[in-house]
């Protein structure tokens, strides 16, 4: 094992997706000299790049053509004409989408700053699609009452990610690419740095910093059918939890209605935004039964549930009846080629269907993690219900729960969330450092702990394969903690997770070398998934209601009296998570809770 080596920076950011890169870029631009980012994969490989459909923001560039109906054509708003969209409307749609579980102050900040952030993206070189008069083009998206998804064809996340990474480079941010964060150093509620492994050499370092941000992304990999990348294993969430940081609202996992059948790979919501239909095996547009007003453009939780119900009631397609058809044929070749080129290629590559003339089999797919590390609107992580800050520790993006999505995220709001709060955290950290924050001492040798952990994994002579444990976890999460949940299934999931955690102790890492050991990484990731999955299940068990993406068949109603609260989960030794509940920030005059109907 290598000698103790210590790396020091002013600001250290873990994760180089939109959230992490924004924070780094902004901090550097604000004049902090020594900003470093570490990412377990090259920054441009981050999952933000996979986002397709768009990023929300009430720019008021586009409106529906009068009399065109809910999926009629759009036109640019002529200069001088009244705007149709507003920040307030965006706020309301988001709150309603969140099933009133979102913190309304944070939502307001997000929707207001959306406009700034979008123009900043544009000024930094992001190649958005355009209206004929040269403004940023917008399209419809589920749950939004106006077309406010700003897009770049169907590779929006890709251009945003590349743009922000380039700007971070321009402002001389230092990158540690292919470094894996393993631990968070927190003493006395003050963050002092992280422990990370240089994957190439297999060396483990203590990295000290005045401020640390986690922008480590989501945890959809805990499910079998998922749209998420291999990298989305929720490391940051698990690491923070293990370090005593509370996780919030973890039970809310979004299932996207249109994942490619069997693969889970996402067919962008833009498919429906552009007017695609969902059909069951009788070729009915079944959404008529579930959300007559919005049809396919109802929010994701609702559409996914509708699909699952069709499937469960025997109206699914494909051999095992687990699929639904996505019908884009009526959009015509030209529109598909112009607006959905990537989506078309995915369908051809993975299920062998060209949407121009064929029905694409799809199924709901685990997509987004509403929950995460509890933080305020500056990305400042909090330690308890009272909101006590964890000094020097920040979180943003999908890994964080600033609670703008509540119980269900609206499409295009998460690129926005990652951007707005990544940016705000960047400013906050710069202020923190420039106001004289000092490097805090670290007691002992935290890297040694991680080295021991790695050594133990490598030395484990176990008989289990890590992958088998991980697969079993995914299966139980999908079957027992998926779209529809109930007490019995959740109890089952909890039991199985305990068993799997025990089995993991007997799992062996096949690759014993130190150089670029991805087998070791997979083992650490499996460990992390076993950690936070327990929190998801615990939250889902506790929450005896149905709200947003959390749908309990044994408690089908929303219950504002008891459950209009955030779930906070603290690690409680080996006993699993300890839950407490935090009130939701609600402006009862402006946005009082209502029934959520589409």
């Amino acid at each position: 094992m290598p000698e103790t080596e210590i790396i020091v920076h002013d600001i250290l950011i873990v994760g180089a997706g939109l959230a992490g890169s924004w924070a780094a870029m902004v901090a550097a631009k604000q004049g902090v000299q020594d900003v470093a980012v570490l990412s377990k994969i090259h920054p441009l490989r981050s999952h933000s790049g996979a986002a397709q459909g768009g990023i929300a923001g009430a720019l008021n560039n586009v409106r529906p053509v009068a009399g065109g109906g809910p999926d009629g054509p759009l036109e640019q708003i002529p200069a001088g004409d009244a705007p149709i969209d507003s920040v307030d409307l965006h706020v309301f749609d988001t709150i309603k989408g969140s099933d009133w579980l979102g913190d309304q102050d944070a939502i307001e900040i997000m929707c207001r700053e959306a406009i700034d952030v979008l123009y900043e993206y544009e000024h930094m070189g992001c190649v958005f699609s355009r209206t004929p008069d040269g403004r940023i083009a917008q399209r419809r998206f589920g749950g939004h009452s106006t077309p406010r998804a700003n897009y770049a064809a169907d590779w929006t996340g890709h251009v945003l990610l590349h743009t922000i990474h380039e700007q971070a480079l321009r402002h001389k941010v230092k990158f540690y690419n292919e470094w894996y964060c393993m631990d968070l150093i927190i003493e006395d509620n003050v963050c002092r740095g992280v422990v990370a492994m240089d994957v190439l050499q297999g060396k483990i370092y203590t990295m000290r910093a005045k401020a640390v941000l986690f922008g480590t992304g989501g945890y959809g990999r805990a499910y079998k059918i998922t749209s998420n990348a291999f990298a989305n294993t929720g490391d940051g969430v698990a690491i923070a939890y293990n370090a005593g940081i509370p996780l919030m609202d973890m039970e809310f996992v979004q299932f996207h209605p249109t994942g490619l059948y069997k693969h889970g790979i996402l067919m962008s919501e833009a498919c429906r935004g552009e007017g695609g239909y969902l059909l069951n095996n009788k070729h009915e547009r079944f959404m008529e039964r579930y959300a007559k007003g919005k049809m396919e453009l109802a929010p994701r939780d609702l559409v996914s549930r509708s699909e699952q119900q069709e499937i469960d009631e025997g109206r699914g397609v494909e051999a095992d009846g687990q699929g639904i058809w996505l019908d884009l044929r009526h959009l015509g070749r030209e529109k598909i080629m112009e607006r959905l080129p990537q989506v078309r290629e995915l369908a051809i590559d993975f299920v062998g269907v060209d949407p121009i003339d064929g029905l694409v089999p799809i199924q709901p797919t685990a997509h987004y993690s509403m929950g995460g590390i509890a933080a305020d609107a500056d990305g400042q992580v909090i330690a308890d219900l009272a909101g006590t800050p964890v000094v020097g520790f920040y979180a943003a993006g999908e890994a964080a729960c600033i609670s703008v999505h509540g119980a269900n995220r609206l499409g295009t709001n998460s690129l926005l969330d990652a951007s707005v709060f990544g940016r705000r955290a960047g400013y906050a950290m710069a202020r923190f450092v420039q106001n004289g924050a000092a490097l805090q001492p670290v007691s002992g040798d935290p890297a040694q702990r991680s080295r021991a952990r790695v050594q133990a994994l490598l030395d484990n002579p176990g008989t289990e394969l890590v992958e088998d444990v991980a697969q079993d976890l995914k299966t139980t999460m999908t079957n027992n903690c998926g779209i529809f949940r109930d007490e019995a299934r959740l109890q089952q999931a909890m039991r199985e997770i305990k068993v799997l955690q025990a089995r993991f102790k007997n799992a062996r890492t096949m690759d014993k070398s130190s150089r670029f050991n991805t087998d070791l990484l997979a083992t650490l990731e499996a460990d992390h998934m076993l950690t936070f999955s327990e929190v998801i299940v615990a939250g889902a068990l506790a929450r005896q209601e149905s709200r947003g993406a959390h749908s309990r068949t044994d408690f089908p109603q929303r219950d504002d009296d008891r459950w209009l609260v955030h779930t906070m989960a603290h690690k409680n030794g080996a006993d699993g998570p300890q839950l407490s509940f935090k009130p939701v920030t609600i402006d009862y005059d402006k946005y009082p809770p209502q029934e959520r109907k589409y």
Partner: protein
Amino acid sequence: MSNPSTHPTATVRIQRFNPETDAKPHMQEFQVELKPGVTVLDALHEIKTHQDGSLTFRRSCRHAICGSCAMHVNGKNELVCNAPLKDRLDRNGRITIRPLPYLPIIKDLVVDRSSFWEQYLRVKPWLMPPADTPEKEFRMSPEEVAALNSAETCIMCGACYSSCQIVGLTKEYIGPHALLKAFLRVMDPRDAIPGARLADLDGADGVYRCRTIFNCIDACPKNLNPTLAIETLRKLAQKREAFEQARIERQKHLDEPIPAR
């Protein structure tokens, strides 16, 4: 893994190399089940998770958007995540996978892309916007955006770079990926320094190092055309001043609506 199975099997030949322990690369064969819909990446995963955990490769998104998984399959560079295994097998049911050529091998199928990223940095991949920014967005016509489509979807996978023999000869060559990026910036009406960019590219390691081999086009999984971008840059470099002048003119109107036609 000897489960009785109804699926036929495929033979996956993989080049293995760990510079810490091996003197030189060698080939190793694995058998995987040829289930329907299996991609080459799925096969690699099956091998890694159940047969030999030390097999090392990069991957993340698994749908051709992150650029991690470019490899040299049956003599060609491509992304393995959207490549159906069935289509890549030869008559004997075999597929041969090697790391991207012309780059140092870190381990098995993982290559060292340092030179690739250095060249990317060298063209200053970021936009240099004009000094004064409008309150709202810069106005760009859909046609101006369309001209950039042929470069903005580059996922920096390196398939082009490592297919180019000139890269094989010299790492001083900027390379097709970075030249394509430079093209994106030069063509963007919002970029304020196209002249300086063209001057930088005009050197012997820039556009003039390309020998029009075309491998880069064949290799690109996103159907991009670095060769054409390079040809265009060469021509623009010839009339740099005029191009710069036109850009200055264009930038005077960046905050005005595109006139209807």
